[in-house]
């Protein structure tokens, strides 16, 4: 049998990988949606103390992740191997810096005695930021694997761009959830519950 008969056309291959990524983002979205639901339900218990302040590092992180997202977009759009590679390097560097900045925020929280087990809001903060960070690391692993495709095949870079937009949206949602949603707000929306 001639193995070349099995080769899947580039267009079909693109569709498959794109579908796979959408499904994956659906699963990750569900995961964070459920963490958010748990967060809101746990918030209704009387021992809840909201996080007292926003660590400044988180604004830096947000900027870095947004920059990474833009860089991926650029890597997907520009022509020429050099330009693609430059955007790729910027995107990966920004993502690594994002992770470092998140760790720095953890240190700041820890220094303010807001440790993991001190109060449930803190526990959720470490849990959710940690899990989001793991998804960034997973993305970086995929990006590292994509390095050999750079300039040859635009699909991987496009998919990376899409995933990073998703990571950014996810981060903004989690950032808003952790610091913007208070028991008072939940009460206002849900009417206090039965």
């Amino acid at each position, binding site marked *: 049998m001639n*193995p070349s008969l099995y*080769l899947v056309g580039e267009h079909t*291959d693109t569709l498959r990988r794109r*579908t*796979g990524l959408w499904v*994956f983002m659906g*699963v990750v979205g569900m995961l964070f949606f459920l963490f958010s639901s748990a967060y809101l*339900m*746990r918030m209704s218990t009387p021992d809840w103390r909201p996080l007292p302040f926003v660590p400044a590092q988180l604004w830096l992180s947000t900027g870095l992740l947004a920059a990474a997202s833009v860089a991926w977009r650029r890597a997907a759009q520009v022509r020429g191997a050099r330009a693609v590679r430059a955007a790729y390097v910027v995107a990966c560097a920004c993502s690594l810096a994002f992770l470092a900045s998140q760790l720095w925020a953890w240190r700041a929280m820890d220094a303010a005695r807001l440790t993991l087990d001190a109060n*449930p809001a803190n526990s959720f903060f470490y849990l959710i930021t940690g899990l989001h960070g793991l998804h960034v690391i997973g993305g970086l692993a995929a990006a590292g694997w994509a390095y050999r495709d750079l300039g040859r095949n635009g699909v991987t870079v496009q998919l990376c761009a899409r995933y990073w937009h998703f990571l950014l949206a996810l981060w903004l949602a989690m950032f808003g959830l952790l610091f913007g949603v208070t028991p008072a707000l939940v009460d206002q929306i849900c009417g206090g519950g039965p």
Partner: protein
Amino acid sequence: MGYGGEHPHSFWTRYVWSQDHKVIAIQYTITALAIGLVGMVLSDLMRLQLGFPGRFAFIDASRYYQFMTMHGMIMIVYLLTALFLGGFGNYLIPLMLGARDMVFPFLNMLSYWFYLLAVLILAASFFVPGGPTGGGWTLYPPQAILPGTPGTEWGIVVMLVSLLVFIAAATMGGLNYVTTVLQARTEGMTLMRMPLTVWGIFTATILALFAFPALFVSGVMMLFDKALGTSFFVPAVVSMGQHLPHQGGSPLLFQHLFWFFGHPEVYIVALPAFGIISDLISVHARKRIFGYKMMVWAIVVIGVLSFVVWAHHMYVSGMHPYFGFFFATTTLVIAVPTALKVYNWTLTLWRGDIHLTVPMLFAIGFISTFLIGGLTGLFLGNVSVDIPLSNTYFVVAHFHMVMGVSPVLAVFGGLYHWFPKVTGRMYDVMLGRVHFWITFVGTYLIFFPMHYLGLLGMPRRYYAYDHYAFIPDSAQALNAFITIVALVVGATQLLFVLNLWWSAVRGREAGGNPWRAASLEWHTPQTPPVHGNWGERAPVVYRDAYEYGLQGGDSDYLPQDQPPDQARQAEPARGEAP
């Protein structure tokens, strides 16, 4: 780009680190059956205690709870989920759709190895200090992680880690199954021409992808509570006279998360069974499946509804009455599409040319057990009926009938049905029939009396029933009877293992299509199918998979890939006859 330019050559790449969906399916199936046998032995050990209390000294209360927990978790997650999605899904999706493989073969291989790792981690919990967890398969905190429950030292941690690894495996597999169904169907294979088996597995996979994250969330948060001292689920507790550092956690939050996974999980194992049964009945009754479109929509509607019924597992946990009303209503509504499927199976059998082959026996057995189990579900779905029956053997009888026995019968039916395709050989018919009758009658004898025990008020999850004046002595006699039948049925499963093992090596050559079936997997150029499945040209599909019972011409069916202008060719109908 694309997959699989190379055919694997060495033993290792062909059978061990294989990326071929068929090999992965067999790996999944064997692993799941092996751990399933362990789960079965555990159930027999529990039955020994229940039937003959105190007679077997090594089964103390702690061991009993450990056996119970491991039995439940193994059967639901590591046997049924893995076997239906990883086993049947892997084998049948590409073959039934005319694809050459899954779209991401490497990920598919990783999925199996993660699954195997999860199984090994789970099995390791028998050997850690303190033994496996005894918290019940629902692992409710706080009891699952606090002293007093067996296995709180290591067992619970090992269990949670194993589940997290399993979820990673199921997600990798699930991405493949969904993407393959959406993107790799062959020419002419529209969604509404897919065999119902694929529809069942496809919908169940979507449920798995969206439900397992809830188990992941609850598992991670419980690990944090156990290992890092957080208080997600554990409230302020005085344990053994000591104030624990936890405070304010919500056990109810865990229950919501767990059952948001746990209820769809029921349909993750039921929907593939529905699909398999539909195909088995249609092929062996030589009749078009009754109401194909209805069947597809029923599967989809059941899948959607399964996400909004979870709190019917929590009626006795305490909830707002309107909440209970809502969940009772959705629970009863789900009976409508489910009953529709049962009617359609029956109507397919009606005046069909029924061949009582071994797969067909299992399929008809499934309809019977599923009907019984489903009807008692209607009892329990009502809040007011559930409250007195909750936590009794009535519930045990219900869920074993509906999601224990029924899916297992579908598994057996499916394994016998596709065995000739997987191995190229026929199983031993006599052994298969003996296996069916003992299993089918035996499971009725085991689980039907449990309904009565439940109505007597016999509580489940108890190690012994001393000093319960309201339970009559005759209940003990019934329990002893159930235990004896359970041991016989358990031993009979060895016949099944023996049959498959022996027939795979020594069985009679079955030919490519012994059932004269119309779906694509029976029309591969080689049997068993080789890497790439279809040889030079992928098949083209002209119709759905249910053209049976045709009059005139030489054969009574039309394969999916036979061009319309080509005359029907007679094929020797070998079936089970030697």
